[in-house]
């Protein structure tokens, strides 16, 4: 007995997913689905426009995409297995490399899950620092999207402009966290170090620099007829389809559903700052582009408010069993030395239980599910990557469009293969 729903029937009738294994696709004697008219083409995994190592098997009728199948796994790193070997303090280095365009979000989801299991409270300043850094990371991730989206559509100069702004944000990250990417800065208990002196000036410089540059992008792309022709009406998805396929983030919002975890199930202190949730109307690639462009502006608004309200205080929980002592104290106190030693060799033990915590990453709902058995390493760690679910919308977005539209569609879905394959 299989119960089904209207939306499921609708998706099945659309028949957009190519059900063919890789072995079948190369076997010469297996007939194709519609042998005379269509052909099976392979795109990727090494391809300039597939945003990493995504492979697409496309069934083409001339130039039109009839069915497609995303083949993933070319970046499978066994991170969930490795995560079981690493202590909770080391876990951040592992998860941060999943969504490598927005690494601080991975760390945030992971740290929030560990803190939920530990039952510790994170100090105010740490929470606001986390908000500051993740919103800046959202800006840098969306700039990456704008750059790659522009290049895929053909506005190659956008690639250079987007990276120009991104460099400034990464410069701030390097100053505060020590690294341009994969920071391992948001850790269970707070953040790894306090903000540097003069951070307000640096952030203000960013906030002053960005708006005129965003205006440049509007001139270069938004109003431009070719851009509109390439993106409007391309890759359309309906709200019901998006929900049924597990899509979240800009894809879901482009259909008109105002679902943003920062607003609906607030974490950190998002309920204390004012920002708008950007929503589209038509569910096409242009909407997704415009949503991300305007989310940069909303993130800047949030950053400005965080700058005003940043309290003084600790940047990490003062729980000796969890957070390492400051380096200076190790010389003075034997206890501090022992705690430092235990935390970095054994790791701190986390009470038994299982939790799932989700944050709103630039790609959608990024969740972390941790099962703890009371020891110093997670028993099971699973990251719910937004791009893994978002990629399931790809066959439905590409169906009926041309191959070049397919490139625009992949770009608007903005997958990061590191988190898809883990």
């Amino acid at each position, binding site marked *: 007995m299989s119960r089904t729903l209207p939306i499921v029937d609708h998706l099945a009738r659309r028949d957009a997913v190519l059900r063919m294994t890789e072995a079948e696709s190369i076997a010469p004697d297996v007939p194709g689905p519609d042998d005379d008219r269509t052909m099976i083409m392979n795109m990727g*995994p*090494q*391809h*300039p426009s597939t945003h*990493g*190592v995504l492979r697409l098997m496309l069934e083409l009728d001339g130039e039109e995409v009839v069915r497609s199948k995303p083949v993933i*796994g*070319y*970046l*499978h*790193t*066994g*991170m969930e*297995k*490795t995560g079981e070997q690493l202590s909770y303090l080391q876990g951040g*280095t*592992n998860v941060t*490399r999943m969504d*490598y*365009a927005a690494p601080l979000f991975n760390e945030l989801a992971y740290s929030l899950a560990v803190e939920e299991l530990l039952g510790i409270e994170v100090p105010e300043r740490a929470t606001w620092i986390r908000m500051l850094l993740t919103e800046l990371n959202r800006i840098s991730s969306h700039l*990456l999207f704008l750059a790659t989206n522009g290049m895929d559509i053909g506005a190659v100069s956008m*690639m*250079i402009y987007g*990276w*120009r702004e*991104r*460099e400034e944000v*990464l410069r701030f990250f*390097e100053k505060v966290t*020590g690294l*341009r*990417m*994969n920071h391992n800065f948001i850790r269970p208990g707070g953040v790894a170090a306090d903000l540097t002196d003069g951070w307000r000036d640096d952030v203000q410089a960013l906030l002053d620099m960005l708006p005129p540059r965003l205006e440049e992008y509007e001139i270069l792309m938004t109003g431009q007829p070719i851009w509109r022709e390439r993106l409007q009406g391309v890759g359309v998805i309906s709200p019901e389809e998006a929900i049924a396929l597990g899509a979240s983030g800009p894809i879901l919002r482009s259909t008109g559903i105002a679902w943003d975890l920062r607003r609906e199930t607030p974490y950190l202190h998002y309920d204390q700052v004012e920002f708008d949730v950007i929503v589209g109307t038509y569910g096409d690639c242009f909407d997704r582009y415009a949503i991300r462009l305007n989310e940069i502006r909303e993130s800047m608004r949030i950053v400005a408010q965080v700058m005003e309200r940043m309290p003084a205080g600790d940047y990490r929980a003062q729980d000796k069993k969890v957070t390492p002592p400051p380096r200076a104290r190790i010389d003075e106190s034997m206890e501090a030395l022992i705690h430092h030693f235990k935390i970095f060799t054994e790791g701190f033990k986390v009470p038994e239980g299982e939790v799932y915590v989700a944050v709103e990453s630039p790609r959608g709902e990024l969740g972390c599910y941790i099962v703890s058995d009371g020891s110093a390493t997670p028993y099971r760690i699973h990251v719910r990557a937004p791009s893994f679910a978002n990629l399931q919308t790809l066959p439905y977005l590409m169906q009926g469009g041309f191959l070049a539209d397919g490139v625009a569609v992949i770009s608007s879905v903005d997958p990061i*293969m*590191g988190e898809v*394959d883990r």
Partner: protein
Amino acid sequence: MGVRDLPEHGLEGLDHNVLTGRIEDLVRWSRARSCWPATFGLACCAIEMMATGAAHYDMARFGMEVFRASPRQADLMIVAGRVSQKMAPVLRQIYDQMMEPKWVISMGVCASSGGMFNNYAIVQGVDQVVPVDVYAPGCPPGPETLLHAILTLHHEIETGELLRRRAESGGGAGIEIDQRDGQQAPLIIGRR
């Protein structure tokens, strides 16, 4: 007057508008200066590779901003990121499709040795699949380190050291460089 006198004397001693030089030097010089990379960005290192191609670090000044999608048109494969078991055959296939002379830079620790992922899924170093000429450490190596690797490669091509090392090892040249990121003072990279 020979080509080799140019850096010192400029065009002063030029007789009859004729420059002489060895074919071998000319070939090596041109190979080093127009090295076109194949797009092989896999993971986080790919983002830093794109940053190196962008305006701030600008690989174009070294003749390298044209990332060729087709391996037939590429000289250099920068393996940027972790290579999974599923990707390894693809890597070898792209390498085989490149035309001689071809060079390989292994960018980042995951490509050089498996990095922090010593498990069932990641090939522990791409030198198990393709011969590597320069290893660039870092996780990810910043644009300065990648430029250092590229300029080292260019210099070794130009002096002929790379081919000599390859002949010696039977595989790649295996030059290891150190990481040059995050420094306050002005950097000197490459071998000049």
